[in-house]
């Protein structure tokens, strides 16, 4: 009931305010954000109620026009995945008040944008609560189409249109796989909804593996597993910022939700499934962060970090699956808890980063990090929030990214004690998580250091003011949650335990109470921090003078161009990973005796997408060559085709 009202409010918010849009466009935007937030608050209230009460709802609504029925099921896992949808949805709605304002973008564009935004969130909520396959796939399709509409909302941008096209192809390839998967389940096993199939399918059958593989393909396409992520960087970078936040923070998580949902259906899990997901996780994690380091486009960089974080989540899911197949309930608990906690965390800090990136993109009209510099002086709050997001996503204490990675580490370290030596390859998970952490840290030092600190490189800082409150509020809110969840991670422990026991299909007697220890340790940290800060501030008060330039080691002709750039800062690391990158470099200089100008370029791009493009190009070329052989322009040959076809048909009829 609550849920219906909340969805109704969100729907209303798309229509109602536009009655006054002609008179007062700003009020219209504000009303939209207000209605939307009320709807989201109601929804979040419902979720909070559901989590504390241990809600378990199952309804079946008649829906005879299209399909026979629409069954709803709400359990812990559904509630958990609903949190980001409502939260980020409302934050994006508030953010859009100034980012995609009616006054600026025109009534038509603004109306379409807001309508799509509302329907997009509603379809995701319905997707998460729907239980029967046909409804699930319907809402999945609606969600994907609306995402296409939102990515291509900017009609003038050619980049957005082509990115949307690529997304469209990718998502439909995925949907075909999903339809096949659901058809197999329905035909071979006779189940038509998730709850009746729960734990009923025997995974040792040959057909079960094809269900699993189709599911991983279809859902992995949306989630952005390696190498199915090829649509993701361009789509996330060319969509409007609030939409990128929703896509990256919420929509790709639906892929994770889908994979978990199909895993719930199996009574047992073969060993190789877990190792497969684990390996995909490691590959996506490491390659995602390496490609992110090579990027200079701030939004594309954040999009690649989504792939990295999906990789970390996949590592966790892989661990949980291994735990199920090796009957190791500790691994199930820590793996799944870490993965789900990371789902929530990523849906908090990634939108936060996108919002703060949007706040600077809007001011300087470029996404190239190499142009920025010194933004912290004119936009101090944006810089602070970006810093919080950066520290969280690098998995550093005391923020939330660390808590979820800590759970994953603990799960993997605990398997070391079990005497199952077959689980030893799990140490590669520890190593790759350490590697991912180190690389993500380097990457965010680069983004933060190059764009916010130092001197401006190619932008003009004078006349720039801090962004409006509508932009700052979502950032501030999300940073606060990041911090609170980081310091008190044990808030999450009950719901995580609940879902993990459901996944294990028998009770888990291990606890994750150790999360509370982190809070205790942080208490000490803040105490020491406070003391040292107070002492240093006391000692330095009145003694600070800020009137000199940076020491350039005796060189007096300082220029901002002498600063370290984003490529030079990371080149040492990228040299180690040169084999994963498609590198183009070159230099021009004039041929005169005393060369005055020297121009150097270095482009390092994703080799995976490069190879995928090359393979598909070769394939298309091959197909068209085949076509020219068949379709060769000789009338006689065509008559022969007709003749042969007729004979074949006659033979068929004759039999």
């Amino acid at each position, binding site marked *: 009931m609550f849920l219906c009202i909340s969805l109704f409010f969100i729907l209303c918010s798309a229509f109602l305010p536009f009655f006054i849009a002609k008179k007062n466009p700003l009020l219209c935007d504000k009303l939209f954000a207000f209605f939307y937030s009320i709807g989201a608050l109601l929804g979040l209230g419902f979720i909070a109620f559901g989590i504390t009460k241990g809600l378990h709802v199952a309804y079946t609504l008649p829906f005879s026009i299209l399909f026979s029925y629409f069954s709803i099921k709400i359990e812990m896992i559904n509630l958990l995945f609903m949190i980001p949808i409502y939260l980020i949805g409302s934050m994006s709605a508030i953010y859009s008040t100034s980012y995609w304002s009616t006054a600026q973008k025109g009534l038509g564009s603004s109306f379409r944008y807001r309508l799509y935004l509302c329907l997009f969130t509603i379809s995701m909520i319905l997707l998460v609560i729907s239980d029967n396959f046909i409804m699930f796939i319907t809402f999945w399709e609606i969600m994907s189409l609306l995402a296409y509409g939102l990515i291509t909302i900017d009609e003038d941008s050619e980049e957005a249109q082509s990115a949307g096209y690529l997304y469209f192809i990718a998502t439909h390839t995925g949907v075909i796989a999903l339809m096949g998967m659901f058809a197999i389940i329905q035909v071979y096993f006779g189940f038509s909804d998730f709850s009746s199939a729960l734990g009923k399918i025997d995974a040792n059958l040959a057909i079960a593996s094809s269900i699993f593989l189709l599911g991983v393909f279809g859902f992995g396409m949306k989630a952005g597993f390696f190498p199915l992520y090829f649509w993701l960087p361009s789509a996330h970078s060319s969509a409007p910022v609030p939409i990128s936040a929703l896509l990256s923070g919420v929509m790709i998580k639906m892929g994770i939700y889908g994979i978990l949902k199909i895993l719930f259906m199996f009574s047992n899990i073969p060993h190789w499934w877990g190792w497969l997901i684990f390996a995909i996780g490691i590959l996506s994690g490491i390659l995602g962060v390496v490609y992110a380091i090579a990027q200079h486009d701030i939004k594309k960089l954040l999009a690649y970090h989504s792939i990295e974080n999906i990789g970390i989540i996949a590592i966790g899911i892989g661990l949980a699956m291994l735990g199920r197949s090796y009957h190791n309930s500790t691994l199930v608990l820590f793996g799944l808890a870490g993965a789900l906690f990371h789902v929530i965390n990523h849906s908090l800090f990634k939108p936060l980063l996108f919002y703060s990136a949007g706040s600077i993109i809007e001011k300087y009209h470029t996404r190239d990090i190499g142009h920025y510099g010194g933004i912290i002086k004119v936009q101090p709050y944006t810089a602070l929030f970006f*810093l919080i997001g950066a520290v969280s996503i690098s998995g550093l204490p005391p923020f939330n990214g660390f808590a979820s990675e800590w759970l994953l580490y603990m799960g993997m370290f605990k398997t070391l004690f079990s005497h199952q030596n077959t689980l030893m390859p799990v140490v590669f998970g520890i*190593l790759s998580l350490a590697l991912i952490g180190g690389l993500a840290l380097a990457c965010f030092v680069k983004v933060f250091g190059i764009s916010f*600190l130092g001197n401006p490189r190619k932008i003009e800082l004078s006349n720039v003011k801090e962004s409006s409150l509508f932009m700052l509020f979502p950032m501030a809110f999300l940073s606060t949650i990041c911090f609170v969840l980081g310091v008190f991670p044990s808030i999450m422990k009950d719901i995580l335990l609940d879902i993990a026991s459901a996944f294990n299909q028998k009770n888990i007697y291990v606890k994750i109470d150790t999360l509370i*220890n*982190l809070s205790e340790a942080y208490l000490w940290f803040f105490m020491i921090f406070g003391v040292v800060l107070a002492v240093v501030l006391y000692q330095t008060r009145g003694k600070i003078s800020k009137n000199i330039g*940076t020491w350039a080691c005796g060189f007096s002709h300082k220029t901002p161009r002498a600063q370290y750039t984003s490529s030079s800062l990371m080149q040492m690391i990228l040299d180690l990973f040169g084999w994963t990158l498609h590198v183009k470099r070159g230099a021009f200089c004039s041929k005169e005796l005393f060369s005055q100008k020297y121009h150097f370029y270095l482009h390092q791009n994703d080799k995976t997408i490069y190879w995928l493009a090359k393979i598909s190009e070769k394939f298309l070329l091959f197909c068209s060559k085949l076509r020219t052989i068949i379709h060769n322009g000789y009338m006689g040959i065509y008559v022969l085709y007709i003749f042969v076809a007729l004979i074949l048909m006659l033979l068929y009829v004759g039999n």
Partner: protein
Amino acid sequence: MQDIIYLIFGTLFFFMLSIVNLGIIIKVKAFFGGRYGVPIFQKMYDILKLWQKSIKLSQTTSWVFFAGPLLATIVPVFCFLFLPFVAFPSILSFDGDFLLFVYMFGLLRFFTTSSALDTGSSFEGMGSARELTFSFLVEPIMFVCFIILAKGTSSLSLEDFFGYNILDAWSDYSTVFGIVVVCFFVIMLAENSRIPFDDPATHLELTMTHEVMVLDHSGPLLASILVGSAMKLTLFAILIVDLAIPFKTGILPLDTTIGIFAVLGMGVVVGITESVMARLRLTDIKKILMGTLIISLFGIILISR
């Protein structure tokens, strides 16, 4: 309350030990160079002098410039809480605290490199790039060492790693633990930018790693960085001593004395290493670190036989 008193005295002791440790390294190097050398407490005088000075800031800098030096002191003190000192148990201990130990240094690195970039100087950017590259290579080695310790001692906290069953673990897996000691030694040299990875005494900006990042810091901020780096060195020395001296006599004063002398002994070893080796080329540092990683991976194979 008792914990806080324990913390205060522990920190004071730790601070003095770090200063003396650094002094000993300088003395040993002076001895090898045939000089008399500065007094052992010279670092202390330097720090006190800097502490009273005023701060000159570049116009380019922002508040991030303060974060690096502050965390440089805070993080080693905080990490000291987790580490037992020979017979003294650690102040704070729980399952998985070693992850916090490692990631706190990550936090420190984030802010030292950021505050270096805050000056907009090309030299400090160079330092950041090097620091980020080397330490992302060091981190996996650290994790491999902890994997070996966890597997060998069947425990998950720093206190238990070096607790009652480390003696048994040494007798079972002496080769592997020997490898871990060597790896920890390499980590100590690399993380604290000692020779052969970096020379803290040269003042040629183009060749430095860590020192070049603090060119613009002055006064109490520089003092904080100096204190922090001395403490960090001693923290790793304590880590090695805890591991390398697994036996305890059971008499607290005797154990503590042995521990202090062992930590100072680490200072002597570092001093000797610095005196007999030259600084490596930058490109070779990556090779050395990756070689160490491979050696430590052999440790995993040996222990999981």
